[in-house]
C-alpha cells in the first residue's frame, strides 16, 4: 500500500470513529447538553477548515474570504428550504437538495470570483478575497425575500412592497436574518463531514491535486512542464468554495435564527487560524487543530469569561513564536538534548531492525 493511501486511511478511519462515537454518545444521552451543543458547530468548522486547507495549503494561496462562500451556501440553502418547506414532502430529501443546491451555488460563485481573482497572486489575492467576503456579507444583510400566494417577492435594502398581506411569509428579513428549519443534527454533520473529507482526500491524491501542489511549489516550473495553471487553480478554488457552501447549508439549518453579520472577516480569520496551526496541507492537522482550538476553550475556559479570548490571543502569538523564532528553536534543541529528555527518549526508542521489518511493504 502506498504511504499516502495509508495515511489517508488512518485519518479517515480515525475521523469516522471519532465522529460516530461522539454522535452515538450524544444520542445515547451520555454527554451533557453543553457538549452536545458544541458538536454540530464543531463539525461544521472542521468541514470549513479542511476545505480552506485546499486553497491555502494545497494551492498555496491565502484566502481571507472563506466566510463569503459559507454565507452563499447558508443563504441559498436556507432560502431553498423555506420556499419548498411545504412542497417537497420528505424532510430529508428537501434538506439534502437544499444543502446540495447551496454547495452548487457556492461553486458557481467560486468560478465567477475565481476567474478574475486568480489572476492576482499573494497578498493582492488575499485582500481581494477579503473584499469578496465583505461584499457577500453586506449583500446578504440587505436581501429581503417574501412569499405570498402570487409567488416570490424580492427586495434589496428595503422589504418588497407589493405583497399580499394575508398570505405573506417573510423568508429573508434583511439584517434580522432568516429562520431556516432546524434539520441539522450530529449524525448528518458526521456523514457530510466524512463525505467532504473523502472528496478532498481523493482530489489531493489525484493528478489534479498533484498539479495544484506543483503550481504551489513553483508556479513557473509547473507552467513550463505543461500544467494548465489557471485550470487547476480554478478547480481547487471552486471545490473549496463548494465545500464551504455545503458547510454553510448545514450551518443555516442548525440555528434558530441566522443573521448575515455572523459571516464577517473574523470568521474567515478564525478558520484560517485553525488551518495554519494544524499545518498547511495536512487535513489531519486541520481536523485536530479545529477540535482543540474550538472545543477546549469552550469546555474548560468558559469560566474565564472575558479572559478567554485574551488567553487565545496570547496562545496564538506564543505558538507562532515557539515554532518559528530562532530563540525558541534553540531553546527547544537545548531541551531535546538535555539529559532527562534523552533518557525518556531511550525508553521509547525501538530497535532499528524492528522498524525496517515493519515498513518493508
Amino acid at each position: 500500500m502506498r504511504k499516502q493511501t495509508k495515511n489517508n486511511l488512518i485519518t479517515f478511519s480515525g475521523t469516522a470513529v471519532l465522529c460516530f462515537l461522539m454522535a452515538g454518545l450524544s444520542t445515547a444521552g451520555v454527554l451533557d447538553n453543553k457538549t452536545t451543543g458544541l458538536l454540530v458547530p464543531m463539525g461544521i468548522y472542521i468541514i470549513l477548515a479542511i476545505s480552506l486547507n485546499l486553497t491555502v495549503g494545497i494551492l498555496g494561496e491565502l484566502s481571507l474570504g472563506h466566510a463569503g462562500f459559507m454565507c452563499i451556501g447558508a443563504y441559498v440553502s436556507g432560502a431553498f428550504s423555506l420556499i419548498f418547506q411545504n412542497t417537497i414532502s420528505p424532510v430529508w430529501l428537501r434538506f439534502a437538495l437544499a444543502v446540495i443546491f447551496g454547495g452548487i451555488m457556492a461553486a458557481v460563485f467560486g468560478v465567477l470570483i475565481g476567474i478574475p481573482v486568480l489572476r492576482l497572486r499573494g497578498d493582492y489575492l488575499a485582500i481581494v478575497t477579503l473584499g469578496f467576503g465583505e461584499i457577500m456579507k453586506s449583500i446578504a444583510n440587505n436581501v429581503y425575500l417574501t412569499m405570498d400566494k402570487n409567488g416570490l417577492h424580492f427586495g434589496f435594502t428595503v422589504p418588497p412592497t407589493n405583497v399580499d398581506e394575508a398570505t405573506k411569509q417573510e423568508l429573508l428579513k434583511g439584517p434580522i436574518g432568516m429562520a431556516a428549519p432546524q434539520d441539522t443534527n450530529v449524525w448528518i454533520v458526521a456523514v457530510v463531514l466524512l463525505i467532504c473529507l473523502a472528496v478532498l482526500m481523493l482530489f489531493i491524491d489525484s493528478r489534479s491535486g498533484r498539479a495544484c501542489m506543483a503550481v504551489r511549489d513553483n508556479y513557473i516550473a509547473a507552467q513550463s512542464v505543461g500544467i494548465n495553471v489557471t485550470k487547476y487553480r480554478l478547480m481547487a478554488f471552486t471545490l473549496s468554495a463548494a465545500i464551504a457552501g455545503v458547510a454553510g447549508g448545514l450551518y443555516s439549518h442548525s440555528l434558530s435564527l441566522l443573521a448575515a453579520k455572523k459571516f464577517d472577516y473574523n470568521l474567515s480569520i478564525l478558520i484560517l487560524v485553525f488551518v495554519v496551526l494544524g499545518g498547511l496541507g495536512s487535513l489531519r492537522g486541520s481536523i485536530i487543530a479545529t477540535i482543540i482550538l474550538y472545543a477546549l476553550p469552550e469546555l474548560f475556559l468558559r469560566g474565564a469569561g472575558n479572559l478567554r479570548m485574551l488567553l487565545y490571543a496570547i496562545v496564538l502569538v506564543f505558538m507562532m513564536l515557539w515554532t518559528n523564532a530562532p530563540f525558541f528553536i534553540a531553546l527547544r534543541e537545548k531541551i531535546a538534548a538535555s539529559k532527562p529528555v534523552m533518557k525518556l527518549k531511550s525508553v521509547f526508542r525501538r530497535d532499528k531492525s524492528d522498524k525496517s521489518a515493519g515498513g518493508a511493504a
Partner: protein
Amino acid sequence: MLSFISYLTSGLSLGSIYALIALGYTMVYGIAKMLNFAHGDIIMVGGYAAFIAMSTSWCPVWLALIISVTVCTVLGVVIEKVAYRPLRSAPPLAVLITAIGVSYLLQNIALLTQTATPKTFKSVAAGAPPFMIVYEGEPPLFFTRLSDSPYKNLTPALTVSMETFLSITVSIVIMVGLTLFINKTKAGKAMLACAEDRGAAQLMGINVNGTISLTFAIGSALAAVAAVLMCSAYPQLTPYTGSMPGIRAFVAAVFGGIGSIPGAMIGGILLGIIELLSKAYISSQISDAILFLVLIVVLIIRPTGIMGKKINEKV
C-alpha cells in the same frame, strides 16, 4: 450642487484620515514585507489614550495628542520587537497569524480594561466655530459661529465643520512632511534602501533593525494622529473602533499599490470620497460592498494597484 460639495469635503476629510492610516500599512509592508493586521487596533489604543488623557481635568488637547502619539509609538516599536522581529525569517503566513494574534490581544486588553460600553470622545475642536458656512447666494463666511452670522435666521446651505478642516489640513501637513523626510533625510533614504533590498542595505552599513523600528514608530504615530482626528469626527469609541477603519485603510493601501507612499495617500483619499458619495447617493447599507467592489475592479484592471510597480518574475 452645494450638497455634492458638502459630501465631497466630508469624503475628503474621511479620506485623509484613511490615508494617514494607510501610510502606516504601506510603509510597514514596503520594508518588512508583512501585512500588519494589528495596525487598526493601534488606532483604537491611540483613541483610548487620548480619551483617558482628555477626561482628566488638567490635560489640554495638545498634551492629549502628544500622549496618544507617544503611547502608540512605544506600543508599535514594542510589538515589532517582541512579536515580529523574531519571525523575520519565518514563512509569511506565520507572521500574518502573529499579527492577527496581536490584534486580538490589543482588542481584548481594551475590552478588559475599558469594557465594551462605547465611550463618547470629546472632539479636539469642541467649541470652535465651523470652518466655513455658505448661505444660498451669499459669499462664504469663515470661522464664524452660527449665532454670530449676519443671516442667522436662514438655514446654511453648506457647513464645513472645524473637524473636517482640521483633518484635511493636518493630513496634508503630515504627508508633505513625510515625503520630505523620506526623500531628503538620511534615515528616510535608509528606509527606501531597506524597502528595495534589505540584504544589500545591510551590506551598505545601514542598521536594518533600527530602520524597521523607525518605520513602525512612524506608522504608529500616524495612526495615533488619525485616531484623534477620526474620534473627533465620529465620537464613538469601543474596543472594536479600529478594526473597520483599519480594514478600509488597508484596502486603500492596496488600492494605491501597497508599498507605495504616494499610492497610499491617493488610495486613502479616493476611498474616503467613494465611501461618502456611495453612502449619499446609492445606499448607506451597502457602501462597504461598493467600496470592495471598486477595489476588486481596480485590481483586476491594474493587478498591483494604482501606483504599484509591476515586478517581472525571474526564473
